[in-house]
């Protein structure tokens, strides 16, 4: 049982490796192209990965659980939601590189609603807004961005409500 967490860490990767094995039997050329695509993405993502892990290092060094509980915890209120929303909008790279940092923040007392808000508000990509305007027009882009911001808050509140069942008590995070 002690080895289970280590095993579960590699389980997803193992399943994907098996999928590659099956795919290679069916279509070797496509599978090699998929592998090549993955490697290219990995190279492209390396700077973002480095940045995220640098942020993780700095946060473990300077951001103490007490700060997280105060600013991103149950009592963070609207200010916490705003911080999560802005953090989500300005965060870069794909969503999955942020899971580890959010998981760590969660363990240190970050409110689940704020995690969901962070993840949802990543849907607003500031650098891509001009391109959205180009494809769909200004009115559409403004309206869609507005609704996505509103629904990032709703996503946070509903996810927390449904995932936790009730409002989490402060002592659940080890406060006090």
């Amino acid at each position, binding site marked *: 049982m002690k080895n289970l967490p280590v095993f579960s*860490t*590699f*389980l*997803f*990767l193992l*399943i*994907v490796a098996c*999928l*590659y094995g099956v*795919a290679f039997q069916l*279509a070797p050329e*496509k*599978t090699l*192209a*998929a*592998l*090549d*695509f*993955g490697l290219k*993405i*990995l190279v492209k*993502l390396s700077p973002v*990965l480095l940045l995220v*892990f640098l942020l993780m*290092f700095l946060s*473990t*060094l300077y951001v103490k659980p007490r700060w997280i509980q105060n600013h991103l915890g149950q009592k963070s209120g609207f200010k916490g939601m705003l911080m999560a929303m802005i953090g989500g909008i300005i965060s870069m790279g*794909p969503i*999955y*590189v942020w*899971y*580890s940092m*959010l*998981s*760590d923040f969660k363990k240190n007392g970050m409110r*689940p609603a704020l*995690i*969901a808000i962070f993840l*949802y508000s*990543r*849907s607003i*990509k500031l650098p*891509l807004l001009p*391109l*959205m305007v180009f*494809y*769909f*027009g200004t*009115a*559409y882009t403004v*309206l*869609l961005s507005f*609704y*996505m911001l509103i*629904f990032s808050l709703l*996503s946070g509140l*509903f*996810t927390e409500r*449904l*995932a936790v069942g009730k409002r989490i008590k402060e002592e659940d995070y080890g406060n006090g």
Partner: protein
Amino acid sequence: MVASAKKTGWMFARTLPNILAVIFLSGLFIEFVSIERLANLLGGNLLTDGLLGATIGSVSIGNPLISYALGGELLDQGLSLVTVTALLVSWVTVGILQLPAEIQALGPRFALIRNGLSFLFALVIAFLTIITMQYLGVG
């Protein structure tokens, strides 16, 4: 500082397999699943098209720019803005391929509920955006 470096290193070691899994799974998806072919299934009524648009967005992965280009093309083919909006929103809010990694990091209940709600919200946002545009007389 050494303790922080060790902790970060441990977190990195635990996260990296999942990140690699998602990256290489997207490679397989891109090579074996044609989003354009999936999009050809569209063309029914507004609700089923909205649902299908949201489903295609949910299982897709990659830069949102691809979804803009695909959405623009689908609009040119005469599909509704509701369908295209559901696709655009779910593309960036729902992650079926990343779900195992999200489950491992944030817990199954949280990940499933968050993604389920995001799917539902993609449809609601699609209808709300179009209704508001019609109400304001823009677009």
